[in-house]
């Protein structure tokens, strides 16, 4: 077992990793920017090294400073957390080059999964459904209409070289297709110097569902159930739950079969997430996040597995403590992300207690939330035997939570989890957009 680990991150995830390390008897080295010198992860770690000024680009993203700090404090491994350099294959390679363990998959696997087209092809290769679309480029309007009618409207025209919405057009009828094809192709050419476009079926208001995976790098793959992360504000997840109200036993098994095949063949190592879009009884591969995720606690609650512990064991020892067949999903878990709406000093923090409540945060009484980083300051996670009981528990825990000195979205979250549509379980990624105006009036 390794003796000491450097956590190349800050805030809540750094605190989370420290907690498990301490339970495992692994010493921790924290890193911090000058804005974070009083951050909880600095206080809780066994050592801390200042790595730069407040901007991430000059501190948490400076690979050399992180690696030097790890080497000179006698660490054997680096945990990248989430965000920052956690999916940066070059960083992983640099870490390994210095003889340190990178707590994550092989850099080549990170590269492969980071390339959306390669990831999509890989998923397809292992039998996972991908969004139906034309095999290759489409330019002839008649052929496009034929293809679109085969796929079924609405469809989306996408630039092959594209990204960021450029060259994308949603088309709802055959009549609109030829004109949009021309516009999309012209946009694509203007933006990417390549006018090639293709057509995919457009999923309206799909659910965002993902499987939590842990693998030992040797072909053993644990699936710790799915999470539903459909409540998103402009692609930022706000509320996550496990299981998903839109996934049944059959879909869960079909997802897991393909995922296990893919992760096994990739010799994937550590924690990872495979994301799907779910529309009715169909699901489509979206992407893989080759790292642990913010919302991992809901999976921890329903499976009883400490994901960070298994991740570290997989990456440092090449082993897992759990048999894939022994994983059981119990009850229902929900997470509300608590985001700061303003930076500032937390003048008062009161944490909810009682059964089935977990509060993961880097806040403490008197701490300062700097303006430089991600707005998430805490995660409130609950567990109950059913979705209804879990929601009643979340509602009561949110009532108990007190954060003074900074504004947070806690009361907005409470509004959402009590909203009729959220309660019904029948919603997709368009849900937040529908309620956004109302939510913004909640204080």
């Amino acid at each position: 077992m390794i003796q000491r680990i450097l956590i190349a991150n800050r805030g809540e995830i750094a605190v989370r990793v420290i907690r498990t390390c301490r339970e495992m008897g692994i010493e921790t080295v924290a890193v911090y920017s000058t804005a974070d010198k009083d951050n909880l992860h600095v206080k809780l770690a066994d050592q801390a090294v200042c790595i730069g000024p407040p901007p991430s680009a000059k501190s948490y993203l400076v690979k050399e400073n992180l690696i030097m700090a790890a080497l000179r404090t006698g660490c054997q491994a680096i945990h990248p957390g989430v965000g920052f350099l956690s999916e940066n294959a070059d960083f992983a390679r640099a870490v390994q080059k210095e003889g340190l363990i990178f707590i994550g998959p092989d850099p080549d696997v990170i590269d492969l999964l980071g390339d959306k087209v390669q990831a999509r092809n890989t998923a397809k290769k292992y039998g996972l459904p991908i969004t139906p679309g034309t095999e290759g480029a489409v330019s002839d309007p008649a052929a496009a209409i034929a293809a679109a009618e085969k796929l079924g409207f609405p469809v989306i025209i996408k630039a092959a070289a594209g990204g960021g919405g450029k060259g994308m057009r949603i088309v709802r009828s055959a009549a609109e297709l030829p004109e949009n094809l021309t516009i999309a192709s012209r946009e694509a050419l203007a933006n990417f110097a390549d006018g090639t476009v293709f057509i995919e079926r457009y999923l309206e208001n799909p659910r965002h569902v993902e499987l939590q995976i842990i693998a030992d790098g040797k072909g053993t793959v644990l699936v710790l159930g799915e999470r539903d992360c459909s409540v998103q504000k402009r692609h930022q997840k706000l509320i996550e739950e496990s299981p998903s109200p839109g996934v049944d036993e059959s879909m869960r098994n079909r997802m897991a079969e393909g995922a296990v095949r893919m992760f096994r063949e990739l010799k994937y190592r550590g924690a990872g997430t495979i994301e799907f879009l779910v529309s009715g009884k169909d699901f489509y591969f979206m992407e893989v996040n080759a790292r642990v995720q913010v919302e991992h606690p809901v999976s921890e609650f329903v499976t009883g597995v400490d994901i960070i512990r298994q991740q570290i064991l997989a990456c440092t020892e090449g082993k897992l403590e759990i048999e894939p067949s022994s994983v059981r999903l119990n009850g229902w878990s929900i997470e509300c992300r608590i985001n700061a709406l303003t930076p500032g000093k937390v003048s008062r923090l009161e944490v909810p207690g009682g059964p089935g409540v977990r509060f993961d945060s880097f806040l403490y009484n008197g701490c300062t939330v700097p303006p430089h980083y991600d707005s998430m300051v805490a995660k409130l996670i609950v567990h109950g035997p059913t979705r209804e009981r879990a929601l009643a528990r979340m509602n009561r825990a949110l009532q108990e939570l007190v954060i003074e000195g900074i504004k947070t979205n806690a009361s907005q979250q409470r509004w959402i989890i009590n909203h009729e549509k959220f309660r019904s379980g029948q919603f997709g990624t368009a849900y937040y957009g529908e309620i956004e105006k109302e939510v913004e009036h909640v204080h």
Partner: protein
Amino acid sequence: MDDKTLITLVEKFGSSQLAELELNDGSMHLVLRKESAIRTALDGVSIGGAAAEAHQAASDTGHSAAPSQAHKADHAVHLGLPVNAGSPAATGEIITSPIVATFYRAASPDTPPFVEVGSKVKAGQTLCILEAMKMMNHLEAEFDCEILSVKAENGSLVEYGQALFEVKRL
């Protein structure tokens, strides 16, 4: 503020009952405090009590104390905290490390240190080597100065912002 005002200000401040004066021109932000007020404030400290005092101590000595002992892990070792150049507590200016690195006073174990206490150096002259990722980075003086003291130990890890030299501008 002109120089005369500054001098007058220093005089007035020195002979007044004031314990604190903060000024932040541009958008004008002024705070004046008497010692009694500060003391009172600290008496009542509650939460941040220990932390505030520890921090106070830290900025005096130029070294970091764990902000709250009670909240600190066992065996906690902090490696020092950035010190602003020109901190009022220091008699000279402080030159700090711009990276996380190993601090070397000499080019090799056999050669003499680049600078000693009392050395007078010219702008551009090497003060030390900061080794990171097997790169030997020469840290050069930005202005003519005299070395008043060496703040870091040869061969040790230095953090971003850690004090390396105390110097007097020449």
